[in-house]
Each structure stands twice: as structure tokens, then as C-alpha cells.
């Protein structure tokens, strides 16, 4: 409903129709305000405020590092296990947060959805922007830690982070929109998503290496596992941050997964499909959001 649109729209139009995600470029200002609102509201009345975005991931990290790494011995098999763990962990946490909050976004904004027409895609996308706000400090910590361990940036490494980030965002937004639409009709969607986010952390190489799972899975399941966009994103993050800190690759059997290029291509296709499905489902049910909430 911004003014730029209206100048183009001289004739009659039907209210309540939008071009979906494509329409959001015209609402970038509102989007940034919604993000600010979310962040502000979440840390309202909190003394530490945004510092919590550092505390939570660091705590998760230390728990896994201590119990899985030291006590269960995962760090003996991996050089710089801390970097390995943290680079995978921030990727999956970014996905989980986006996915979970996208799913709840329509219900959380019920007051607005019921009363004022806005392209409803604004709400899931705003939560994605909030997740990015939380992602940056974690990325910063990871960078500092990696540099201490002898990390150097390379063109391919930066490209890998970008690609990983796009895969995570696309999958989370696509699936998030699908579940957000479902959540309007049945709140089971929210619980289902909680369940899925619990599984994702273990069904991708975050705490362990992909090569460890190969022996325990039938071949077809292993293939599915490797084509999973979350696995690809985690491996891309490992490639970007963990690899450069290992000077002596060969000693530790460091190799990229077999057919990694192929897996990435499949992942990209899966993400695109998920985005299309999410957007289509969202648009199909959008017309009934206001009356069902």
C-alpha cells in the first residue's frame, strides 16, 4: 500500500491481493520497523538486553563442547573441535530460530492480520530479519575464535558462507510460511515444528562428522542425509571456518564429503521447491487468515 505502488496503479485493483514475497521490496521501511519492534519487545524490561543474544548460543556451545567434546571424546578425533562445533551450531541455530518464529509469526500478529490489510508475508520475513540480528553476534564470535586459531579468509570461503546462509534462509522461510499457514488453522503446526527443530540438530553433522554416520546408515538414507540442505549448509560453514584452521589436512582424514558439488545442487533445488511450496500454500490460505484467527 505504499505510495510508489499507487502511482503505478492508476486503474482499479482488487484489495487484498499481493504478489507475495515479491511485493515486500516496496515495504522495506515497514519491514525494518517491524524488525526493530520485535527486537525491542523481546528484550523489553531486560537489564542485559541484547547481550542475551551472546549468552544463549555461548551456553549451548559450552554445554556441547564440554559434554560431547570432552567427556564423550569427540574432540580427540577432531583438530579444533570447538571451531567445528560452533560453526555448525550457529548455522543450525539460525535455521531453527527462523523456522520456529516464522511458524508463529501470523498468530503472533493476529491483531494486525485481522484488522489491517498488509501483504502477510511481511510477518514471516520480519522474523527472519530478527534471526539475522541474532546471527551476526554469533558469527562475530566465531570469526574472532577462528582468527585466534589461525584462520585466514579466502574468496571461496566467503562464498561458502554466503551460499550456506542462503540455503538456511530459503529452507527456513519456505517451510516457515507453509507451517505458518497451517498454524492458523491448527496449532499443532507449532508443536510439530518444535519436534522438527529438535531433530535437525542431530540429523546434520553438527556435533559429529559426516563420515561417522556413514557406517551406521543404509546407503539410501546416507544419500538423503547428505542431500539435506542443512547438512550442506553445515558442511559449507565447516569448509569456510574450520578447514582453514587445519594446516595439516591429510593427517586427520580431512576431506569434503563425496559428491559434495552434487549434494549442493540437490540442496539448492530442494530449497527452491520449498520456497515455491511455502509461498503457494501461504497464498492459498491467506484469504482465510483474518476470519480464522
Amino acid at each position: 500500500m505504499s505510495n510508489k505502488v499507487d502511482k503505478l496503479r492508476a486503474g482499479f485493483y482488487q484489495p487484498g491481493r499481493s504478489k507475495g514475497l515479491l511485493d515486500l521490496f516496496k515495504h522495506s521501511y515497514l519491514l525494518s520497523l517491524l524488525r526493530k519492534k520485535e527486537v525491542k519487545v523481546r528484550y523489553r524490561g531486560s537489564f542485559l538486553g541484547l547481550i542475551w543474544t551472546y549468552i544463549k548460543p555461548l551456553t549451548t556451545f559450552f554445554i556441547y563442547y564440554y559434554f560431547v567434546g570432552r567427556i564423550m571424546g569427540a574432540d580427540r578425533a577432531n583438530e579444533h573441535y570447538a571451531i567445528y562445533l560452533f560453526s555448525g551450531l550457529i548455522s543450525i541455530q539460525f535455521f531453527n530460530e527462523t523456522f520456529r518464529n516464522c511458524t508463529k509469526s501470523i498468530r503472533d500478529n493476529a491483531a494486525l492480520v485481522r484488522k489491517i490489510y498488509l501483504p502477510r508475508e511481511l510477518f514471516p520475513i520480519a522474523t527472519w530479519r530478527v534471526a539475522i540480528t541474532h546471527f551476526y553476534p554469533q558469527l562475530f564470535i566465531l570469526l574472532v575464535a577462528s582468527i585466534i586459531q589461525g584462520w585466514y579468509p579466502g574468496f571461496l570461503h566467503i562464498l561458502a558462507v554466503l551460499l550456506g546462509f542462503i540455503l538456511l534462509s530459503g529452507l527456513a522461510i519456505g517451510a516457515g510460511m507453509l507451517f505458518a499457514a497451517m498454524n492458523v488453522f491448527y496449532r499443532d503446526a507449532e508443536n510439530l515444528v518444535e519436534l522438527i527443530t529438535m531433530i535437525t540438530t542431530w540429523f546434520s553433522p553438527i556435533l559429529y562428522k559426516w563420515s561417522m554416520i556413514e557406517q551406521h546408515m543404509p546407503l539410501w538414507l546416507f544419500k538423503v542425509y547428505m542431500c539435506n540442505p542443512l547438512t550442506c549448509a553445515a558442511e559449507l560453514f565447516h569448509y569456510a571456518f574450520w578447514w582453514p584452521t587445519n594446516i595439516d589436512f591429510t593427517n586427520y582424514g580431512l576431506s569434503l564429503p563425496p559428491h559434495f558439488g552434487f549434494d549442493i545442487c540437490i540442496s539448492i533445488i530442494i530449497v527452491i521447491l520449498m520456497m515455491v511450496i511455502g509461498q503457494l500454500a501461504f497464498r492459498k490460505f491467506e484469504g482465510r487468515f483474518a476470519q480464522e484467527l
Partner: protein
Amino acid sequence: MNNKSLKNGNNKIDAKNAVIKIANVDKWFRLHHNYSLKDAFVNLFTHKKRDKSLFHALSNINFNINSGEAIGLVGINGSGKSTLLKCISGVIKPDKGKVSIKGRIAGLIEVGAGFHPDLTGRENIFLNGAILGMTKEQIIQKFDDIVEFSEIPQFIDSEVRFYSSGMFLRLAFAVAIHSDPDIFLIDEILAVGDAKFREKCLNRISELSKQGKTMVIVSHAEQQIRQLCQRAVWINKGKVQMDGPANEVLDAMNKFTGLKK
């Protein structure tokens, strides 16, 4: 003769200047929709059918609203006025028929819907301005006017949850009235605030109406409709019962419901 020619003249303008076209609009609501596994289980044993009853909220609504017209939608509670207004704003989609609009539309439907209690008055002005379709520049430009209109400049940097309900509505109304759309949708908001502020709002609305803004007003306050609108549409049980000059429609409605004027 004279009357007839006037009518024909009006019709010509109608076709030319319509900014809202409502054509064959139907809307049904499902009255019972939460269906859980437990319900399914219970129904299986009691042989009860799933309740699928539909409520026909709007049936075959047809009329146009012209540019610059102030039109009142009247009728008893549950007659479908607000549903129709929501169809016009795009919040809900009609199941049948079509609503077409020309120009930018903004609802004063339950002002303050986009307000968040944890944000300050200032932040809420920006957020709501953007929600109502204003650009950043427009909001900055009108910011002082909005604050002045609300008459609460001293609280503008306090969080809205510390506002009294009157203060809240003042600010919400001030933002909405400054959002400058071509078409205003107004739903029962003129009952807000103290008498003095209400008068100010009414004056502002009739000022905007004189400037040529199109208005669609839903209200139970008969006096306001008579004062602001030339035309009224009486909606009864989801159908247009009568469409004509505001005073005539209201008189007919009062006669129908047995109310004295």
C-alpha cells in the same frame, strides 16, 4: 421531470467517478471450526455429524461508491456492516463476487490495531504510519502535526502502556487521520475520547470530506451519520435493504426497528 433528469445526471457521474465497485459480493463464515482428534473420536462413537453449518454474512451485495462521497453503512449488530468494510479493505476476501478499488485506501478500522504497548508514542507513530501505507519521509513531515493533533506532546517518549485509554486513542486517531489515503474506512471509532476531542475528530473528518476524500463510515451513532454522510446504505441480514440519502435511510430503518426518532 426535474427529479428524473437529476437522477439520470447522477447515474452518469456514478459510472465515471466510482472509486469502489462492489459487485455480487457473497461471504460465508463457518461457525464451528475447531475440530480436534478428540472431537473426531467422540463423534465416531456418538454418530454425531461434524458441525459444518455456514453463516451467510453477506449475500449479493451490489453498489458503487463515488469519488468524494461520504457514505454510511448502517444496520443492527451482526448485520454484516463490518464484514463488508473488511472486504473493501482487503482484510477478508469475498467468497463470490468482486470488490474493485481505485486509489489508496486506509482503514480507521479499530484504530491502534498496530500499536504496541511496549514501544514509545514516537516509535508507534512511525510503525503505524508505515502500516497505514505512509513512507518514511511522509511520516517525518507530518510528525509534528500528528503530535499536535493528539494533544499529548509531553508523553510522546513514554511507552504506550503507561498511557490512559483516552491518550492512546488520541494518538492512534491522530496517526490514522494523517495517513492521507484517497479513501477512508471508518468503523465505530467516533465514539472515542472525551466530548471535546470527539468533536475535533468529527470536524477533521468533515473537513477531509469537503476536501474530496471518499469515506465509508460504519457507525451506530445516528447523529454522526446524518451529520457526515449524504448517502447511507442500510444492511439487514447481509443484504442491502435500502440505499439512498442518509436521512431517508435512517428514518426508514428506525421505523422498521420500531425506534422513535
